[in-house]
Each structure stands twice: as structure tokens, then as C-alpha cells.
């Protein structure tokens, strides 16, 4: 499989911006698309911040000029340049109606050779493949947050995903300095089937007054050696995404063990979405109270 040069990134949220940064830092030409100029301006700020703090968060290798890296990214609301995309990674919200529309559009603007990777939390890859005319060239690539820091990606093979498509995805990951772990298609895959239940159960503990968020997270960090506790992780992912994922699992398995905790629902209703909104289970203040 030849080198991958141009990568389309659909959705400039938490994952899309992290991905665009990691791809640009590894020398790829990146096409970052979202709905509004305002979202894209916010994404550019986030990427600048990510590049600035990278070393502090453990990034290795030579420091590259931030403007040079940013120049590799085209910010677009109109899928500009996607006719040259070798690979596309979709990171939009976990809404099946919206995703279908995006895949129809991608199918129309990208050449037949382009591979589509869904960076979804719980939506089955086989269903996404069926929304395109190229189900053999669709797979799941579940990147972890923050993308530039995480060495491993969960790769998901849909029912029709070809071996060549998996190879192409592995090539891209190698170019990013990452590795993939391949699993079969199932709602939530391996990661989110376990993680979302864990987070939801941790929210129940806070909801029931068994422990505060700090206690829950410190137990995971200091007793189990986890880098982050489940509620800090929830804040990082975004509580809206957590809720959508838990609801997605509930719908997919029709199993009451995936019922979302009422506190999680209330926090999302209140706009307490975690790191991205400045407040979740924790405060993300940068000033004195």
C-alpha cells in the first residue's frame, strides 16, 4: 500500500481537532470540515493550544514551528479538496441521521479509492458501510483522547470491510506513529462497551451519595494505577457524548443495564458537559475563585 498524503477529517470537535493536529504533525495534508466558520475558528485555536502544550503532555521529537504545522490544514465548510482525499476519518456527533447525510456526501465527493474510517463510539460499522456505495472500504477507527498522545487505536472490521482496507488503515496509523488493535463489529466495540458502563456506574455512585467524584477518581488512580478516573475521563470525552453513547448501547442491546443515570442526564441538560464547557464533575477554571 502506498503512502497516504491527504486525509479528510469530518467534524472539528474534541476528536476532530486532536486528529487534525496529529495528522498535520506527522506531515499529512489535512482537510478539516465542519458546518460553520465559527466552529473552524475555534478548532484552529484548539489546535494551536494543542501544539503549544504538546511537550508538556509528553510529546517527543523535535519541536516544529506551529505555523508550519497549521499550514498543512485546510479549514473548510464545503468539503473543499475532498476529491483528492486518500483517506477520510469521520468524527461527528453520535446521531445516526446526521451521520447518514455525511456519508452520502462523502461518497459523492470522494474518489472510489478513498477509505472511510468512522471514529464512532457505539454506532455499528456495518450500518455505516451500508450507507455508502463502498462498504468494503469502510472501517471503524476509534481514536483515544487526546489523540496526539495516545499510541493505540481500536480498529473495527465491519461485515464487508476488506483486508486491503484494514491494511490501508494500518499504513496510516504507522505514518502517525500509532498501532491498531483489530476487533470485530459490535455496538460499543470493546472500549466503549466497558468504559461507558463504568462511567455510568461511577455517576450512579455520585448520584447516590456513596462517594464524591474526587473519591471515585482517586480510587481508580491510586488503587488501580489508572492515569485518569472514570469521571475525569467523562469530563474529557464530554458528558453529552457519554450520554449519547450510553443511550446508543441501550438501544442496540435493549438491555436495562445500559440505562443512563439520571444525574448524567441532568448535567447534560444543565450544560455541564465537562472540559469543553468549563465545568463537569470538575471545574476547568484558570483563575482564582
Amino acid at each position, binding site marked *: 500500500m502506498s503512502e497516504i498524503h491527504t486525509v479528510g477529517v469530518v467534524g472539528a470537535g474534541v476528536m476532530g481537532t486532536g486528529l487534525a493536529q496529529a495528522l498535520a504533525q506527522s506531515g499529512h495534508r489535512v482537510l478539516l470540515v465542519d458546518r460553520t466558520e465559527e466552529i473552524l475558528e475555534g478548532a484552529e485555536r484548539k489546535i494551536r493550544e494543542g501544539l503549544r502544550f504538546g511537550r*508538556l503532555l*509528553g510529546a517527543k521529537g523535535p519541536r516544529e514551528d506551529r505555523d508550519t504545522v497549521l499550514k498543512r490544514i485546510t479549514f473548510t465548510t464545503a468539503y473543499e479538496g475532498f476529491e483528492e482525499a486518500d483517506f477520510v476519518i469521520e468524527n461527528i456527533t453520535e446521531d445516526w441521521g446526521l451521520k447518514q447525510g455525511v456519508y452520502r456526501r462523502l461518497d459523492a465527493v470522494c474518489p472510489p479509492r478513498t477509505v472511510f474510517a468512522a471514529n464512532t463510539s457505539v454506532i455499528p460499522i456495518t450500518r455505516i458501510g451500508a450507507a455508502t456505495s463502498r462498504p468494503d472500504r469502510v472501517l471503524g477507527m476509534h481514536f483515544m483522547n487526546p489523540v496526539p498522545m495516545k499510541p493505540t487505536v481500536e480498529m473495527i472490521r465491519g461485515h464487508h470491510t476488506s483486508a486491503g482496507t484494514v491494511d490501508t488503515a494500518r499504513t496510516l496509523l504507522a505514518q502517525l506513529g500509532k498501532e491498531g488493535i483489530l476487533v470485530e463489529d459490535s455496538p460499543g466495540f470493546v472500549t466503549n462497551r466497558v468504559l461507558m458502563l463504568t462511567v455510568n456506574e461511577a455517576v450512579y455512585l455520585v448520584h447516590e451519595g456513596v462517594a464524591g467524584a474526587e473519591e471515585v477518581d482517586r480510587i481508580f488512580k491510586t488503587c488501580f494505577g489508572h*492515569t485518569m478516573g472514570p469521571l475525569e475521563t467523562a469530563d474529557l470525552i464530554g458528558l453529552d457524548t457519554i450520554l449519547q453513547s450510553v443511550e446508543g448501547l441501550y438501544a442496540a442491546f435493549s438491555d436495562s443495564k445500559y440505562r443512563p443515570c439520571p444525574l448524567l442526564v441532568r448535567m447534560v441538560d444543565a450544560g455541564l458537559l465537562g472540559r469543553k464547557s468549563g465545568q463537569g464533575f470538575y*471545574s476547568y477554571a*484558570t*483563575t482564582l475563585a
Partner: protein
Amino acid sequence: MTTADHKPQILAFLAQFFGEHRLAEDEDIFATGFVNSLFVMQLVLFVEGEFGITVEDEDLEIGNFNTVLALDALVTRKRAVGAADRSA
């Protein structure tokens, strides 16, 4: 120029995230389990805003941010540079 003590402001900021825990000046902030490594971004933005300094790329090393003493030393150093620049 006198060397101001920035530690009370730094400790007051950190207290927001440490519950009942009384953080010692030489205690590794990131080893306590109260915050994770991503908290360092909040710390950088706090010292820049609170003390009117600019943290340059070469200062973005974890050793400058992992204890109250290290943070105080960083602020003192950056303020001295800023004062020297202004008087030059």
C-alpha cells in the same frame, strides 16, 4: 527589586481542586491523585493570567509546574526578565 512571594496566590488557586487536602509547597501536584496530567494546561493559563507573564515554549517543562515551589520560582524568574526588559 524585591522578590515577591507568589505562593499564597498559587496555593489559593490550587485549593479549588484539592478538596480537604492541604498541599505542601514541595509536594508533587500530579502525584496526589487529585488532578491528572492535563491539569497542567490550566496551571499554565492561570500563572500567565494571574501574574501577567508569558510562559515561553522553552519553559513548558513539567518540572516548572509540578510543585508550588517550582511555580513560584518560574513566576519570579519570568517577572525578573519582564522587569529587565521594561527597564532596558
